[in-house]
């Protein structure tokens, strides 16, 4: 185990962290505004992946370019989910909220299985094999693009939330529903926006990783679980927390794979969650 291998693992971890951050931010946004924990977030990533795959397979559209199509598509899907599945149970007990999105997750996963079969699919792009080399460390350009893309989207979202009126309205609803209503903000519309955005971000994450990740019906499960760990670790509802936590999780997973084996990466992530719960139960951002 030499230094180069470790550095390689660290870099891989950081790059993947960008993707986890994107999925987690979507999740934390939905929770922050609508107060519903979306167990189907991973499946939204899966949907983004399949959409990207089919756009490439049928019409040869480059995965990065197809973001322009898949993001609006998934945004609309999120809006529909909020309007018909979540809105009715907004004030229902925890049980209802959990199982609604669990049901959605199961339905989506199996709809994919049914429609596309369990076959592993992949997208081959011209630049898939290209990589940057420096000091013994290899960085495939596809992973780099994914990382940059994720950060760019996260950055755009932050700008949206802090600089635009609509974004501020969204944050207002997240902070205090009743007061924001007094200010003339329509919470229902904000819910639709939040879920739409959260879904679009998850779908974008899916699209960004398709160039180097296999697409199959249950691929979302891992992303959903990791996103949850990130959100809990980073404190529910905090975007900065999600960014910081995703870094920790990405690196932990990567080091876990390096030292314990490829199939135990997720176990490392959960070990991290357990440690987090024991030492910092409210997450990194404390009393959010």
């Amino acid at each position, binding site marked *: 185990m030499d230094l180069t291998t470790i550095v390689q693992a660290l870099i891989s971890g950081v790059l993947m962290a960008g993707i986890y951050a994107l999925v987690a931010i979507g999740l934390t946004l939905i929770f922050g505004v609508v107060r519903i924990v979306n167990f189907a977030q991973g499946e939204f990533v899966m949907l983004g992946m399949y959409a990207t795959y089919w756009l490439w397979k049928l019409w040869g559209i480059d995965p990065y370019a197809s973001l322009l199509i898949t993001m609006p598509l998934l945004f609309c899907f999120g809006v529909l989910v909020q309007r018909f*599945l979540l809105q009715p149970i907004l004030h229902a007990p925890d049980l209802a909220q959990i199982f609604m999105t669990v049901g959605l997750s199961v339905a989506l996963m199996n709809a994919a299985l049914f429609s596309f079969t369990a076959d592993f699919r992949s997208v081959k792009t011209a630049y898939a094999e290209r990589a940057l080399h420096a000091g013994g460390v290899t960085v495939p350009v596809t992973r780099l693009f994914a990382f940059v893309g994720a950060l760019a989207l996260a950055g755009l979202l932050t700008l949206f939330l802090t600089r635009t009126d609509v974004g501020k309205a969204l944050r207002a609803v997240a902070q205090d529903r009743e007061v924001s209503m007094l200010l003339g903000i329509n919470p229902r519309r904000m819910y639709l926006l939040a879920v739409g955005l959260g879904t679009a971000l998850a779908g974008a994450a899916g699209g960004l990783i398709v160039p180097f990740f296999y697409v199959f019906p249950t691929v979302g499960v891992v992303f959903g679980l990791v996103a949850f760990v990130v959100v809990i670790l980073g404190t529910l509802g905090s975007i900065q927390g999600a960014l910081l936590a995703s870094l920790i999780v990405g690196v932990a997973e990567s080091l876990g794979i390096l030292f314990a084996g490829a*199939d*135990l990466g997720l176990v490392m992530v959960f070990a991290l969650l357990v440690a987090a*719960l024991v030492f910092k139960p409210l997450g990194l951002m404390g009393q959010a």
Partner: protein
Amino acid sequence: MRRAAAAGLFLTLIVLPFLLPNPFYVHIVVMMAVFAVLGGAWNLIGGYAGQLSLGHAAFFGTGAYVSTLLVNATGISPWITLWLGGAAALLLSLPVGAICFRLQGPYFAIATIGLGEVLRLLVLHFREVTNGAQGLTVPFKGEAPWQLQFESKFPYYYIALAMAAAVVLVTRRMERARLGHYLVAIGQNQDAAEAIGIDSVRAKGQALALSAFVTGVAGVFYAQYTYVVHPDSVFGLGMSIQIALVAIVGGVGTVLGPILGAAIMESFVQSTQIAFAGQYPGLELIVYGGLLMAVILWQPRGVIPWLARVFRRAAARRPAARGAQA
């Protein structure tokens, strides 16, 4: 009146296997009984205490694996490993509760999903011990009652029925005891419960331990009945969801809910499997997911509470109703 109905039901259940046309239907009722046990066990922590677990497969699989490994390694009777499997699951529940109970509703659920997944991955990883993805088999001994193996499905049915009856009785006892009341209080408002002297961590821990034990025992039974344990099925998220669903569809926090839920769920699963005859992979699970969403939209509390409301309204409308007190 109710005693007579209960006695009648009990008798029906006892003679049921003899009334069924072929072993396939007996298999179905065995599975219903198993899920009634699982749902009932889940109900203790998920229904009464309000801690929704989506990781009960962890306890199920632990029971199944511990038992099968012991049976394979030492030839010990599964009648003994029934208790050992349950105990193993109970031990597992102790640290899980200690760590996870500080989490609120949905986050507790996620942590439990993690638990199931971690165990599944660990079992897959340590394949020298667990035989990895190929799973374990129970050594076939034909008709061997002392090894909990029978050639006919009937004995399995009666064992499962006895377990389900035990769960019903235990749930009723608990409901009426202090623990049962405390769990309901915690489910309503944990802070208020703490303020009036209820040790919520201890109460939830007890409920979880009991729940895990029973689930582990059911896991051992399942291993003996199906002769095979696979990590993806016994530790899988699908199993966890099915277990929770049985209690939810039937009615959380009620004694009979899981029984009814198991009957409904298993009929549903079997009929969709027959209808789609394995032609379309995933289709019955889509319907599953759809059913779950539909149930939540329509009656989030489950069928039993809905029925209870329906009966109460019907009884209220009949002025001469006798013995209508439920």
